[in-house]
């Protein structure tokens, strides 16, 4: 063994520290009213993690209700078409309610029910997938649920609004600011501040104040844990080896951190996050926090310190993405840290390239992906041909695309 003199190995298990920091990122930037609620949540979560009954109940629900483990699918025709690396898909689109979001929603809802003595859930949603997942978990566990959603997102993700309502959840329209995910989070936090004695805020991504980024990561890590063993097991559809690269889209970063985290120690596996490139970086209409050197800077938004798209005065920038779930000005603090220490890398995919990925997966594999997940595919269209045929890419297919049919129809036309 050679000992490196230039760098000490990074201990990925050591973050966050007790104050909720991932290096310089993370923390708890919230109004005082919420500090006790965050402490209480952290305590409940730490307690649940080592409670065998709790973990067994969650595992049982994941198996019998969510349908886990989700399959691993070899994308044969897509791989052949691109002529490079072999592409495998982790099928979170097949999880009950249609996306990886259920992993976290069910975990937190069960935590509230079993460990916290609260009776009411509030959540935000962008694409509506987290809202639907939360509404689903609330119905399953018999809990009151209110979901805040920007009016712009309600329009572009209409089917999900109706799904939430069918599940017994009240969807509250948010008309302030950019009327998208960021504003829905502000409003959910305001509700939480007001009703904190009875209410749990079921945050939907690896964002927000400590302990959310770590807790959401842990609930989502089931994706990577399953994929790690499936990849090595031909009986589970895997190539019998670990992938050379893992690709996932990054909104707040929960599906990405969920699949990355169990692979952090496999230093040979490249971890690639794909942000929303919107109309392109120069155009300014995008949500690529890491790709915009001018506006993507260290900042604090909604409780956590991370990369934030902002103007020179610290006002949060308006973002754009064809996918509501990636249309957000900040990114989970652990991604910012993993990028700094050189473990993960980030790129972006424009709306146009995303639609190419969307169509490719529909036509070559018979899978209609969520527009969020189509960002990962869009990037793989470029990456795979640069790799050798004996190399392997694992893509996190975070959700299914039923909710996006309206958007896609408007963009590429419905009568083809």
């Amino acid at each position, binding site marked *: 063994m050679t000992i490196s003199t230039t760098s000490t190995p990074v201990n990925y298990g050591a973050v966050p520290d007790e104050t909720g920091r991932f290096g310089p990122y993370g923390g708890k*930037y919230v*109004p005082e009213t919420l500090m006790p609620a965050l*402490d209480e949540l952290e305590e409940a979560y730490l307690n649940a993690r080592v409670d065998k009954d709790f973990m067994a109940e969650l595992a049982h629900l994941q198996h019998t209700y969510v349908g886990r483990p989700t399959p691993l699918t070899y994308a044969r025709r897509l791989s052949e078409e691109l002529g490079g690396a072999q592409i495998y898909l982790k099928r979170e689109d097949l999880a009950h309610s249609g996306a990886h979001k259920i992993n976290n929603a069910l975990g937190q809802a069960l935590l509230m029910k079993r460990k916290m003595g609260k009776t009411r859930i509030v959540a935000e949603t962008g694409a509506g997938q987290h809202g639907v997942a939360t509404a689903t978990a609330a119905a399953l566990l018999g809990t009151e649920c209110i979901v805040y959603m920007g009016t712009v997102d309600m329009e572009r993700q209409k089917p999900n609004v109706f799904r939430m309502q069918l599940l017994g959840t009240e969807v509250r329209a948010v008309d302030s600011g950019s009327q998208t995910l960021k504003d829905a989070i502000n409003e959910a936090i305001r509700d939480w501040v007001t009703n904190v004695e009875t209410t749990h805020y079921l945050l939907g991504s690896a964002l927000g104040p400590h302990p959310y980024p770590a807790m959401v990561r842990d609930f989502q890590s089931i994706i990577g844990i399953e994929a790690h063993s499936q990849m090595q097991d031909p009986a589970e559809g895997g190539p019998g080896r670990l992938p050379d690269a893992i690709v996932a889209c990054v909104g707040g970063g929960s599906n990405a951190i969920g699949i990355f985290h169990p692979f952090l120690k496999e230093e040979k596996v490249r971890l690639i996050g794909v942000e929303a490139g919107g109309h392109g970086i120069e155009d300014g209409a995008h949500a690529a926090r890491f790709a915009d050197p001018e506006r993507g800077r260290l900042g604090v938004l909604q409780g956590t310190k991370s990369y934030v798209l902002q103007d020179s005065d*610290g006002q*949060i920038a308006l973002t754009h993405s064809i996918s509501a779930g990636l249309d957000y000005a900040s990114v989970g603090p652990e991604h910012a840290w993993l990028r700094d220490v050189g473990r993960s890398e980030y790129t972006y995919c424009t709306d146009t390239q995303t639609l190419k990925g969307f169509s490719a997966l529909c036509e070559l594999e018979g899978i209609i992906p969520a527009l969020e997940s189509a960002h990962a595919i869009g990037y793989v269209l470029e990456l795979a041909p640069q790799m050798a045929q004996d190399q392997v890419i694992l893509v996190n297919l975070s959700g299914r695309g039923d909710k996006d049919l309206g958007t896609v129809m408007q963009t590429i036309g419905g009568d083809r």
Partner: protein
Amino acid sequence: MRGVERIEQVFRELKTTGAAAFMPYHAMGYPTRQQSLEVIAALAVAGADIVEFGIPHSDPLADGPTIQTATYAALVGGTSVADCLKMARELRDQGVDTPFCAMSYYNPILAFGEERFANAAASAGIDGLIVPDLPPGESELLEPACRAAGLATIYMLAPTSTEERIKSVARHSTGFIYLVSVTGITGARDELPPYLPAFVERVRRHTDLPLAVGFGISTGPQAARVSEIVEGVVVGSALVKAAGAETGVDAVRILAEELAAGSHKGVDG
């Protein structure tokens, strides 16, 4: 005199009269730059003891609809952090000498540069700083920068605060402590919460600093009742709403006089 001492002096002088400080908030740049300057001047004349000088942020997570709308309009009108500090300087040059506590969120200050902000604020005539999304544990850069610049560092407590957090806020605050009267966001409310006196008592056990109560106070009688139990009465949304009305500055003056009379009731009664 340093900013923190100017704030301490307000409370020291009022103590002898039994009155509470009247501490109105206004969002700078709202409804326009010029009008916001007139509002601050009017508040000073109407009897403000300390002005909460609001620096707008795009994502005011602790604010209700009134202040959200006002700060959004101010940003659309082009209000910047630097311009807010310039406005403070202009007011000082006009002779307005009421102590100012800047009130903003953390990100605009972080973007400006924490040390640079503290120094620029102090030289613009700002005396203290309140940042609702920056609790003591996260303030390891800004707090020393403010101390060095002579600014009071004011933290908030809420009815949900534990004894431990009360102790921590008491340790880190200078000038006064801001008590959020309700579990909730800013906005005028009809009733004062019944648990307010007990909350105030809980905080008193851990500090001798003056206490100011805010969130929800909108009328003279409410101000008078609050003035009986604490040293400062903060009023935001009701005045901001008045500033946005057609009668603007006049409406602010009339309401501010009523609130000042309520807060100062100890002087007469």
